[in-house]
């Protein structure tokens, strides 16, 4: 940690780095917090083996900051191996809470819950104004094709998912201008304070696509964390859509949002298969991952509920 502290001091141009502490460590990246000459900063560093290019993510965060999206400010970044890590970003620390269940249940966030739906709509409208051409390396994604392939690779048969794929193909929304989408905009990936949205985090899944993807994903049942309210567990569809329309000047077709919500539910189901497969294949032996395989039927049930009377 001493070595990392001095490497960080050099990277951010500080005399002194203290209180370096690891916040979390996932399979592909680690997050640390530290004080650089008294300024609270966050380090995200990639482990070797992660195929994603953190340089692209850094460019996206910088572009989002410039577009006025509430995001941490990028202080330093590199995608070259160094004493700090195989690739890293240093960002300003934003205070608040990311844990969905706390945001949805704790009294402290009562006011935040009221303002979040509209704030989410405005933040999404803002981030969708970023010119994708300013972020080289961002790739367009055909999400239906991508998850079709993931399901096929898993080798697991799921009649419900086949029905959902058929519905998605038959109700494909009209094409739209290429837009930078966040790709994982939901509770858990936003910093929330007592006053509401403070920062949009976790931009590693950003890509070029349909802006309605972000709105639909935010409404997927898994991201309501047990709350009856459809938008991130805090609001109604109309609140999100009205705020988005007002800030963007665009007209939102709620059926297109629902299409993306259905695809999002299907995506999360396929991701659950992947997590269980990580255990079964021996990549990461864990009864927790194994149990996730039996949550796939929750997504299947959600798909039937979402498509009831829409087939």
């Amino acid at each position, binding site marked *: 940690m001493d070595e990392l502290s001095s490497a960080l001091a050099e990277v951010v141009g500080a005399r002194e780095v203290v209180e370096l502490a690891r916040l979390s460590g996932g399979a592909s990246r680690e997050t640390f917090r530290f004080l650089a000459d008294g300024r609270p900063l966050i380090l995200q560093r990639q482990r070797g083996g992660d195929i994603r290019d953190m340089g692209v993510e850094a460019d996206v965060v910088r572009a989002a900051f410039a577009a006025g999206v509430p995001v941490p400010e990028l202080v330093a970044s590199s995608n070259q191996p160094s004493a700090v890590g195989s690739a890293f970003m240093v960002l300003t620390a934003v205070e608040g809470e990311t844990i969905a269940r706390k945001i949805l249940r704790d009294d402290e966030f009562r006011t935040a819950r009221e303002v979040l739906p509209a704030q989410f709509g405005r933040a999404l409208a803002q981030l969708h104004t970023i010119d994708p051409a300013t972020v080289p390396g961002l790739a367009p994604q055909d999400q239906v094709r991508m998850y079709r392939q993931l399901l096929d690779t898993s080798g697991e*048969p799921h*009649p419900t998912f086949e029905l959902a794929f058929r519905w998605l193909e038959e109700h494909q929304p009209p094409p739209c201008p290429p837009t930078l989408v966040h790709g994982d905009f939901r509770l858990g990936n936003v910093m929330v304070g007592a006053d509401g949205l403070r920062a949009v985090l976790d931009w590693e899944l950003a890509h070029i696509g349909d802006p309605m993807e972000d709105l639909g994903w935010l409404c997927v049942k898994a991201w309501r964390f047990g709350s009856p309210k459809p938008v991130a567990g805090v609001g109604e569809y109309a609140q999100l859509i009205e705020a988005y329309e007002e800030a963007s000047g665009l007209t939102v077709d709620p059926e297109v949002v629902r299409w993306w919500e259905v695809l999002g539910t299907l995506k999360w189901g396929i991701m659950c298969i992947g997590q269980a497969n990580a255990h079964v294949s021996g990549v990461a032996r864990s009864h927790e991952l194994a149990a996730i395989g*039996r949550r796939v039927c*929750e997504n299947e*049930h959600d798909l039937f509920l979402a498509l009831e009377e829409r*087939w």
Partner: protein
Amino acid sequence: MNPHDMPSAEQLVEAVREWLERDVMTSTSGRLQFHARVAVNVLAMVERELQVGPTQAAVHRDRLEQLGCADERDLARRIRDGELDDRLPEVRELVWATVKDKLTVANPKYLD
């Protein structure tokens, strides 16, 4: 007919689950307690599957037969290839019923 002595598989799993709930959950905290809770849930799921699994398997076989499919994989392929397009409402009804059976074992609270 299985040749094993009592306790049954279901009772053995139940015994381990009760131990986790009674002794492990109460003397752990944080991540270890969370993982113990996950283990309790997994064992409860296995108990439910041991209870209703054979009946569900028979019902599932009947549903597949009604649709003229050999197994789940065959059903998935035939939906994908459009071979069941002339009876989709029936297909959806039967597939949803199977999903509800899976939830009855995996997480019955989800059906509420």
